[in-house]
């Protein structure tokens, strides 16, 4: 029906766009988002300039704040890296939350029960390794069913999150509980804690190493190529003789393993204990980080830092100006909306009716 009359605006896929203008649009969308973010502040009678000032101050102005901001950014970055290969493959893994949690569970087991028997460094390595395995296996379950029965992975991985969180809630009040009835798992002893480098747990080094590794994996290896082919077209991949099911499972395992390591970094480097909210939405937020970075490992560093600045800064904003700290979520949301929208203008161009011939319109 719509095709019968010439639409006012018509779309055409852009063939090529200069990379610089692409990134210009993206930066522009961030600025638009920050402008839109003024709206809730103005509505609640807060001066947006001083509010943004406080956000920046509260996240970057002092070494302590900067450390906290970086600590917030580490899991976002790590987990975005984990998600990238899945999304490249168009396997919508939204189960990172659960994979982080299961990784954290495995790491916590060794931190609680083996810390007095294994020396510091081997203990940390074991924790990291088992966390990776646990996260990987947790991710493998939906991947198996996807490969075998084509079960919808978005919904499956989503459910797995809450199962993992429920398991931790049970451990908290059950077998791993510290003081009876308190529902708190004891804090880790020093030997189960990640050492700090420049004042921040060395998880940031792990994350940066992963950035490079993931970049190489995705762009320079055969497996990375296979992932890209499946992402483009499963059928092409099949014709080319790839074992799609196997690749799906392998990729999901890798993804889950990285998420598991993130879980290990969180419990061993930041929280020093385990509780059901250990992933704290990181698994979801990092999906947006990965997507907005165009699955580019290096861009993820920037995006995760921006989100961390917002989160940490809003906390200070609440302290100093009584603005609800949830402003961070609002601005993050607006930021995501704007950046998602801007991709449209990168991929398509608008053709207005008056610019073209009538015959062309149909």
């Amino acid at each position: 029906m719509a095709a019968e009359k010439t639409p006012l605006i018509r779309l055409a896929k852009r063939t090529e766009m200069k990379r610089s203008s692409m990134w210009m649009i993206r930066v522009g969308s961030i600025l638009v988002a920050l402008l839109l973010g003024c709206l809730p502040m103005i509505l609640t009678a807060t001066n947006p300039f001083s509010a943004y000032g406080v956000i920046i101050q509260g996240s970057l102005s002092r070494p302590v704040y900067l450390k906290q901001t970086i600590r917030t950014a580490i899991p976002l970055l790590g987990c975005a890296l984990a998600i990238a290969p899945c999304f490249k493959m168009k396997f919508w893994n939204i189960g990172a939350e659960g994979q982080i949690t299961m990784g954290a569970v495995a790491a916590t087991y060794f931190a609680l029960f083996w810390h007095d028997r294994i020396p510091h460094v081997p203990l940390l390595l074991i924790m990291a390794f088992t966390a990776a395995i646990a996260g990987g296996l947790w991710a493998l379950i939906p991947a198996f069913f996807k490969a075998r029965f084509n079960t919808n992975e978005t919904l499956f991985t989503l459910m797995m999150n809450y199962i993992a969180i429920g398991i931790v809630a049970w451990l908290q009040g059950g077998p791993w509980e510290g003081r009876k009835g308190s529902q708190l798992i004891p804090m880790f002893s020093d030997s189960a804690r990640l050492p700090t480098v420049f004042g921040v747990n060395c998880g940031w080094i792990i994350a940066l190493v992963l950035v490079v590794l993931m970049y190489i994996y995705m762009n320079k290896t055969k497996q990375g190529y296979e992932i890209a082919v499946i992402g483009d077209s499963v059928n092409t991949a099949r014709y080319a003789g790839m074992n799609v099911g196997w690749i799906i499972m392998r990729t999901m395992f890798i993804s889950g393993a990285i998420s598991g390591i993130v879980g290990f970094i969180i419990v061993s480097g930041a929280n020093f204990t385990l509780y059901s909210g250990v992933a704290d939405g990181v698994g979801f937020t990092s999906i947006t980080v990965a997507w907005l970075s165009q699955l580019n490992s290096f861009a993820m560093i920037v995006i995760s830092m921006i989100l961390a600045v917002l989160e940490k800064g809003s906390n200070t904003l609440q302290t100093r100006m009584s603005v609800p700290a949830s402003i961070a979520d609002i601005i993050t949301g607006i930021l995501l909306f704007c950046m998602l929208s801007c991709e449209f203008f990168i991929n398509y161009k608008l053709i207005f009716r008056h610019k073209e011939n009538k015959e062309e319109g149909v």
Partner: protein
Amino acid sequence: MKKLFSVLIVLMLLTGFVFAAGSAEKATTASDPNTVKVGLLCIGDENDQGYTYNFIRGRDEATEMLAADGITVEWVTKFNIGEDATCTDANIEAAEEGCQIIINNSYGFEPFMLEVVDDYPEIEFISCTNCASVFDGRDNTHNAFADIYEGRYIAGVVAGMKMQEMIDNGKITPEQAVIGYVGAYSFAEVISGFTAYYLGAKSVCPSVTMKVSFVGSWSDATAESDAALALADQGCVMISQHSDNTTPATAAQQRGVYHTGYNNDMTGIAPNASLISTRIDWAIYFYEAIKAYVNGEEIPQDWCKGMAEGAVVMTPLNEAIAAPGTAEKVAEVEAALADGSLEVFDTSTFTVGGETLTHAFALDTDGDFTADSEEAVYDGAFHESEFQSAPYFTVQIDGIEWLNAAY
């Protein structure tokens, strides 16, 4: 392509530092010796009309009391902090914002607070309702609680009188005098509270029994409501609570049973159900602690006061529905508690597995979560909150049924 991004981030950093430089002097602490900046980190917000609301009342009252003494308090209050790493961050935040005293209002905050205290030796950290300060060897950590079990005992007396009246009027049989108690977690503070409450009720209504349902959260309005409804449905005629919200009162009103509350007068919310509440008046402690700090004295390491000092108070009795003579009885019990002629945990008033309680340790000195020193039972009573402010009564006495002990 990435250049632009790096330019952006550098710009952001720069503006950050410019802003920061502009406010650097603002952040330093006030030089006026009679002004003190205090952080208050809360698990919920005033909307609970219970636990956190009670703290905010204490904060405001203490501010007025201190103002009368010429002391100005600048409060930094943070709400809805989780019992998790966000609590560590909130403590850092408050410390960096120049707070000289930081008060953590929930039990589960303490382990996360302790992660921060060594970085700020000049700041005094207070963890309400918990107990680590005595053994942690630090000077800047403190605990505080009040003898809330006294208030609960009296609330129990009010509830018991109501149930006895119902029995006497033939509304219920003696066996139907069942209390339903919504507890947060199955640990000492809660156990001590409901046992005191039960003993209070039993002192005036000998046939009473009690069912306890744990919800596994300090503050989960829905679960508290569900638990209260479930208890009422199981035949409980009296609901009480050790949880932060008012929903148990609402639930009691909805099911047509009675209720006694905690933290706040709930008769406004449930005029036909709520008889009385007990609450800790935190203003007493805040006043003492802040005053001590300003005068350059030590804040007590482990503070605990009771009804006699005004730290535990009863809210107004709902005369319209309370049993006749309740007010007089309450006054009588209050006086007896104050002069020491009445012990709440008198071992002659309860049994454990049919036996009289003769032994229970009070303190856990080695951190393995079981009490191992200081005999609490002597002179015919269990002495609660005497060796430390945080309650340590964990005995399961006869007449109280735990419906779900998993929490």
